[in-house]
């Protein structure tokens, strides 16, 4: 019987038993259902609202209709014009919602209850242009001469940095969504490990298991089994997100490619971050044997991970700032900070490699440390074991 086969059996039990639980299955179905609705909701929010209907009444200068249309095109405000015989008819049309606004000769622009400055600019600008042309013709001026009078200086425009593209925005949104999922997954599945360890101690089954395997095997098996469950959840959620985003068509961005890239990064950093935190959770779980003690003990990993979560949010806006660059190398925070940096910016390969290496080395050390605490605490009968006592109690 090899060490690995026993770890496989231990991991399989944790995976299967938890995957079969109604709570897990229901939460999976619920979350995936919510994610699948995101696409249609975005598509609905992004749909073409159609033109705005506007009424015309009273005496308008010649060419007003054409001038209003030109002004609407210039301001990218699609409108549809309707002519009404008198003021009463146009007011009724506004009140009944048939049209959004109306222009009454050169006197007034009428709205139902709230003035839309943009629509007003379209209507008054258009009519003013028509009136200007009539007045210019009366004065014997050409249109070019009018332009020189109205716009005597032509300014050029220049920007120092490129504007944010749609892709940048999509990457930032993906980084935020990914960060949330990463943070929640590490904490939830880490706490599952803690709960599993605590339950085995509480039910005393751990003594039966320990008569067959080593303490570190139990810890590693549990971390693998529950971690795999988390991985499946992330991939299922990511798959659902990709599927749902495929119905959205925003500008020229390839959301599917971006989604796959983000999902890949998410899986990588989930595995690395989860491995680190779940070992910590597992060792802490061995020090307690009652559900009510869990909350207090579970605070330690949360306090460690929380600064990383906030720094990662800052790193989305400033991925190459010194704070982001330094903290993406610190093992307790790197899973989140480096993950978001990799999504929103082109991080140097050496930085990513160094970050992964440091995290792996720290996790390896933590397995030895956590394994010893687990060993020292798991057979203690006191409801709560101090970390120092667990350390001393474990031999070697």
């Amino acid at each position, binding site marked *: *019987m090899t060490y690995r086969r*026993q770890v496989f*059996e*231990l991991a399989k*039990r944790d995976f299967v*038993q938890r995957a079969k*639980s109604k709570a897990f299955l229901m939460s999976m179905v619920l979350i995936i259902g919510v994610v699948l609705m995101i696409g249609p909701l975005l598509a609905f929010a992004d749909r073409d609202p159609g033109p705005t209907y506007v009424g015309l009444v009273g005496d308008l200068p010649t060419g007003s209709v054409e001038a209003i249309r030109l002004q609407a095109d210039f301001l990218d405000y699609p409108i549809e014009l309707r002519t009404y015989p008198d003021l009463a008819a146009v007011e009724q049309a506004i009140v009944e919602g048939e049209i959004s606004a109306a222009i009454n000769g050169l006197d007034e622009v009428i709205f139902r209850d709230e003035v839309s400055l943009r629509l007003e600019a379209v209507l008054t600008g258009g009519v003013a242009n028509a009136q200007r042309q009539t007045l210019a013709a009366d004065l014997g001026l050409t249109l070019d001469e009018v332009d020189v009078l109205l716009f005597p200086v032509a300014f050029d425009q220049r920007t120092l940095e490129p504007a944010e593209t749609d892709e940048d925005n999509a990457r930032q949104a993906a980084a935020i969504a990914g960060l949330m999922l990463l943070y929640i997954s590490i904490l939830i599945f880490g706490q599952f490990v803690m709960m599993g360890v605590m339950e085995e101690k509480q*039910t*005393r*089954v*751990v*003594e*039966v*298991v*320990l*008569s*067959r*395997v*080593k303490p570190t095997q139990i810890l590693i098996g549990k971390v693998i089994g529950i971690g795999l469950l988390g991985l499946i959840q992330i991939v299922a959620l990511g798959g659902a997100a990709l599927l749902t985003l495929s119905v959205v068509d925003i500008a020229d961005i390839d959301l599917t490619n971006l989604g796959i890239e983000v999902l890949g990064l998410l899986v990588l950093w989930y595995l690395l971050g989860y491995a680190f935190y779940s070992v910590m959770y597992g060792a802490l779980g061995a020090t307690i044997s009652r559900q009510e003690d869990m909350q207090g003990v579970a605070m330690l990993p949360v306090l460690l991970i929380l600064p990383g979560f906030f720094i990662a949010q800052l790193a989305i806006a400033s991925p190459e700032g010194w704070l982001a660059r330094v903290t993406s190398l610190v093992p307790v925070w790197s899973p989140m900070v480096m993950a978001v940096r990799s999504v929103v910016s082109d991080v140097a390969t050496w930085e990513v490699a160094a970050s992964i290496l440091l995290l792996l080395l720290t996790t390896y050390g933590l397995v030895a440390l956590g394994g010893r605490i687990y060993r020292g605490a798991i*057979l203690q009968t006191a409801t709560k074991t101090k970390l120092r006592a667990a350390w001393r109690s474990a*031999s070697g």
Partner: protein
Amino acid sequence: MLEFGELTKRYGEVVALDRLSFQVHPGRILGFLGPNGAGKTTAMRCVFGLVAPDSGRVTWNGAGIDRETQLRFGYMPEERGLYPKMRVGEQIAYFARLSGMDGGEATSATDHWLARFDLSARGDSKLEELSHGNQQRVQLACALVHRPEVAVLDEPFAGLDPIGMETMAQVLRALAVAGMTIVFSSHQLDLVADVCQDVVIIDNGHVVLSGEVNELRRLSPVRFLEVEVNGRPWTKHVEGVTSSDDNGRHRYVLSRTAPIEQILEQARRDGELTRFAFEPPNLTDLFREAVGR
């Protein structure tokens, strides 16, 4: 042979094991007795490395017990524990696989033990849905499912009803006949006398009495005599002989070689002799004497 060699274990000021030494012979059942806190559980945990002794060691056939050897042992801890929400059959098969059986072997061994304990219909039930006694049977099945060479059972009879105890006793006897070496602790001394060939009694972490049950009884210098005349206990004072009253029983305490004919004659003079029992001490007597309480 399973040998506990000079095991010593201290917890601060408390000495749990004090150079504890005894052997369990292959294919025999040994009752491991002692008052609460004598060190039985600590000694049993030492077999599986669950407790590391400060000195001394446990050996199997002369060699130390490594991980491979441990997988050929079965253990039922005093603190009962299995997975409450796991199905009974899955649970037994899981421990079989964890002990090295492949999937097919584990399944057939599980079926065998479910049938042996009359639990075949409950294989798909969650453990927590079973009665206390049935959970106890599942616990024993988990300890024995991988056909261990040695079974170390801490209080396997605790909490069982008389029928459950008899079933469990039959199982242990059959396993010993088939060659399994069994050591179990218990406070039910009648049962131990009934099931075990050998006993070890420990107190304060060291052995105070050990040997074959019948031999220990036979070799004891003490004999108990109970006499009834006309169907009622005969309680007359006999010169030079002490007596004790215990639970309505009047017993004369004699040496193994005491001349009992005189007492027989004396009793006959008082009426019709309806009972005359001259017996070696039972296990309870030996236990009390050994631990001095």
